[in-house]
C-alpha cells in the first residue's frame, strides 16, 4: 500500500516536472504555433541563473527565492530576443523555425559550455527543502513537494492571466482568429511578443526548479525538450487544460511502467502509448474549436 502511494506521488511529481517544462511551450507552441527547439535551452539558462545567483548571494534559501523571478526574467528576455530577431520573420514558415531554433539551441549550449565550463555544476538546495515530510504516513521529499506546488502556482497564475487580464483576452483573441483580432484593433505583433516572453520565462522558472533535482549542464534542456513537446502534443494544442492533464497522465504512466518494468522499457512504453493515442485522437486530449477560416 505504501508503495502504491509513494509511486502515486512519484508519478505526480514527475508530472509536475513535465508540466513546468511544457507549460511555456504550451503557450509558444500551443498558442502561437512556433516550434521552438531552443525552449530547453531557456530552461538551461534559468538553471544557470540559479547557479550564478547562489554564487553571489550565498544563502541557498534566499538565492532560490531570488532565482525564481530572475530565472523568469532571463528566460523571458532570451525568448524576446529570439522572437524579435529571428522568429517573427518566419511566422508563416514553421518548418524553417524548427531548424533555426534548433541552431539557436546548439549555439546557446556552446555558449554555456564556454562561459560555465563543460563539467556540470551543482546548486545546493536550501536547508528547509532538504529531507522529507511525513504525509499520510508517507515520507515525501520536500523538494518534490515544492516543485509540485510551484507547478500548481504557475498554472493558476497563467490561467488567471489568460482568463482575466486584458493581455490574456488579447492572446486568446489572436489564437482564435488572428485576422479578426487584428481587424478589431488588437496589435498582434505586441501580443505575440508578450506571449513569447511569458512562455520563455516559464521555461526559465522550470530550469530553476530542475536545479533541485539534478546537476546543471549545458545539455540540460535537451533531456526535457522532447518530453515537453510530447506533453503539449498529447494534451492538445492551444489549451492549457490539455497540457496539465497530459503532463500528469504521462508522469503517472511513466512511474507505473517504470515500477512494473524498468526505466528504459518504461520510456519506450510511454512513447508507444502516445503514438497509439495520437493515431486515435490526432488533435490531442483537448482541442480548440475555432470559427477561423484557415
Amino acid at each position, binding site marked *: 500500500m*505504501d*508503495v502504491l502511494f*509513494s*509511486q502515486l*506521488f*512519484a508519478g505526480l*511529481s*514527475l508530472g509536475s*516536472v513535465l508540466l513546468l517544462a511544457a507549460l511555456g511551450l504550451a503557450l509558444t*507552441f500551443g498558442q502561437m*504555433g512556433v516550434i521552438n527547439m531552443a525552449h530547453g535551452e531557456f530552461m538551461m539558462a534559468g538553471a544557470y541563473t540559479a547557479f550564478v545567483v547562489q554564487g553571489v548571494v550565498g544563502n541557498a534559501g534566499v538565492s532560490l527565492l531570488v532565482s525564481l523571478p530572475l530565472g523568469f526574467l532571463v528566460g523571458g528576455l532570451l525568448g524576446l530576443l529570439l522572437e524579435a530577431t529571428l522568429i517573427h520573420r518566419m511566422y508563416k514558415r*514553421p*518548418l524553417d523555425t*524548427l531548424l533555426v531554433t534548433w541552431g539557436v539551441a546548439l549555439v546557446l549550449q556552446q555558449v554555456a559550455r564556454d562561459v560555465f565550463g*563543460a*563539467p*556540470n555544476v*551543482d546548486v*545546493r538546495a536550501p536547508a528547509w527543502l*532538504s*529531507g*522529507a515530510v511525513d504525509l499520510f504516513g508517507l515520507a515525501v*521529499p520536500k*523538494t*518534490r513537494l515544492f516543485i509540485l506546488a510551484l507547478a500548481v502556482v504557475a498554472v493558476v497564475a497563467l490561467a488567471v492571466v489568460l482568463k482575466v487580464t486584458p493581455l490574456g483576452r488579447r492572446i486568446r483573441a*489572436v*489564437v*482564435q*482568429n*488572428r485576422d479578426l483580432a487584428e481587424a478589431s484593433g488588437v496589435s498582434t505583433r505586441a501580443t505575440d511578443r508578450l506571449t513569447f516572453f511569458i512562455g520563455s520565462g516559464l521555461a526559465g522558472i522550470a530550469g530553476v526548479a530542475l536545479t*533541485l*533535482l*539534478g*546537476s546543471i549542464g549545458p545539455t540540460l534542456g*535537451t*533531456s526535457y525538450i*522532447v518530453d515537453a*513537446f*510530447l506533453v503539449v*502534443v498529447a494534451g492538445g*494544442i*492551444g489549451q492549457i487544460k490539455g497540457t496539465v492533464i497530459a503532463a500528469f497522465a504521462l508522469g503517472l504512466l*511513466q*512511474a507505473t511502467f*517504470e*515500477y512494473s518494468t*524498468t*526505466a*528504459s522499457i518504461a*520510456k519506450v512504453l510511454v512513447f508507444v502509448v*502516445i*503514438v497509439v493515442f*495520437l493515431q486515435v485522437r*490526432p*488533435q*490531442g486530449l483537448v482541442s*480548440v474549436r*475555432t470559427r*477561423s477560416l*484557415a
Partner: protein
Amino acid sequence: MTPSRATTRLAPAAALVALALTLTACGARTATGDGAGAATSAAESCVDTSGDTVKIGFLNSLSGTMAISEQTVADSLALAAEEINADGGVLGKQLEIVQEDGQSEPTVFAEKAEKLITSDCVAAVFGGWTSASRKAMLPVFEAQDSLLFYPVQYEGLESSPNIFYTGATTNQQIVPALDYLKEQGVESIFLVGSDYVFPRTANKIINAYAEANGIEVLGEEYAPLGHTDFSTIVNKVKSAGADAVFNTLNGDSNVAFFKEYKNAGLGPDTMPVVSVSIAEEEVGGVGVENVEGQFTAWNYYQTIDSPENATFVEAFQAKYGADRVTSDPMEAAYTSLYLWKGMVEKAESFDVADVQEAADGVTFDAPEGSVTVNGDNHHIAKTALIGKIGPDGLIYTEWSSGEPIEPDPYLEGYDWAEGLS
C-alpha cells in the same frame, strides 16, 4: 492560416522530430564503434630511435562528453612525461609527445590510433577511457603490432598482447568490494546501474558472487544514460530494504540518484551505497553533501599516506593548481608511463616484441603502492581499497586488501564465476 490550425497539422511532425531527436541522442551516447577494425597486415614498425628523442602518443578525448574525465588523464600523462624527461628520459632519449584528441567517439579513437602508429611512428600509445573506445582501438593495435596502455578500471573478460591494462579489472575492484560488504555482515544488496555494457557485465559478476556467498540480490535496476528522474528507482530500492546498494551508475545520473536518495531519507547509516564510478573528480559534481559518508571502490585515493603519493599530488597541484584533485584513473595513467619506461629499460629496446618479452615482473612504486605487471594477461597487480567519502570531498581509505591482488580478468580463480566468460 491561424496558428491553432497550423499547429494541429504540425503536431505529428513535431512529435516525429522529437522522437528522432531522442533516438539520435541515444545513438550518440551508446554508440560502440567497432567500425575501424583495421585489416591491414602488420606493417614494419617505423619507430625512429636513432636520434636523441623517441615519440610516444597520448590519445584522450579533449572534446565531447568524455572530455571532462579524459582531460584529467591527459594532464597526469603530461606530468609523468615531464618528470621522466627531467630525469634523463628513457634509455637516454627524451620523450616527444604527440597528443591526439579522440573526440569521445570510438571510431575517432581507432582512426587516431592508426595515425599515431603509422604516420607519427610512436613507440607506444597511452589513453582511452570508455570500453567502447578500447574495443575500437584493439584491432588497430593488434594489426599494426603496436602497444596501448589503457588506464581505466573496466569490466574485465579481455586480454590482448598489444594492450597493457593499468586500471583495475573486476577481481581488483568489484570482487573486493563484495568481499568487504560480506565482511560487514551485509546479507542483501540492491543493484543500480546505467544501461550499458559495464554495469550489465559487472552485475552479472555480482549476481554470480552473491549466489555463491549467500547474499540475496533484492533487485537490479538500470537507468538509461543521462536519466534524471530517480524517484521510482529510489522507491524500489527503499521498499526492497536491502542492507546495501551497489551502484554502477555513470556520470550525471549519480547526481540525480544521490539527491533523490538523500531526500527519501536514505543515507550511509540506513542503507550504504558502494559506487565504482565516483572518484575525487566526480564528488564535486555530485555535491559533497549528497554523498558524504558513502563508499567507493578503487585502487587509489588522493589521501593515501605514502611518500610516492605525496610527491605525485604535490607535483600535480604545482603544475595544474592547488584546487585540482587526483583520482584513480589519473594515477593509473601516470603509473602506466613509468611502467612502460621500466619495460623499455629492462628490454633495453623500444621494439614492441622486446618490450612484451620484458614486461613480466616489471614493478613501479606508484602513488597507490607497489604495482607489478603480469606478463601473461598484461594487467597489473594492484591493491584494492574501499573508501569513504569525507566532508571535504576527498575519499579516505576504510578497508584495504592489504597486499596487491594478482589480476584475473577472466575470473578463472573463482569457482562461482564459472560460465561467466
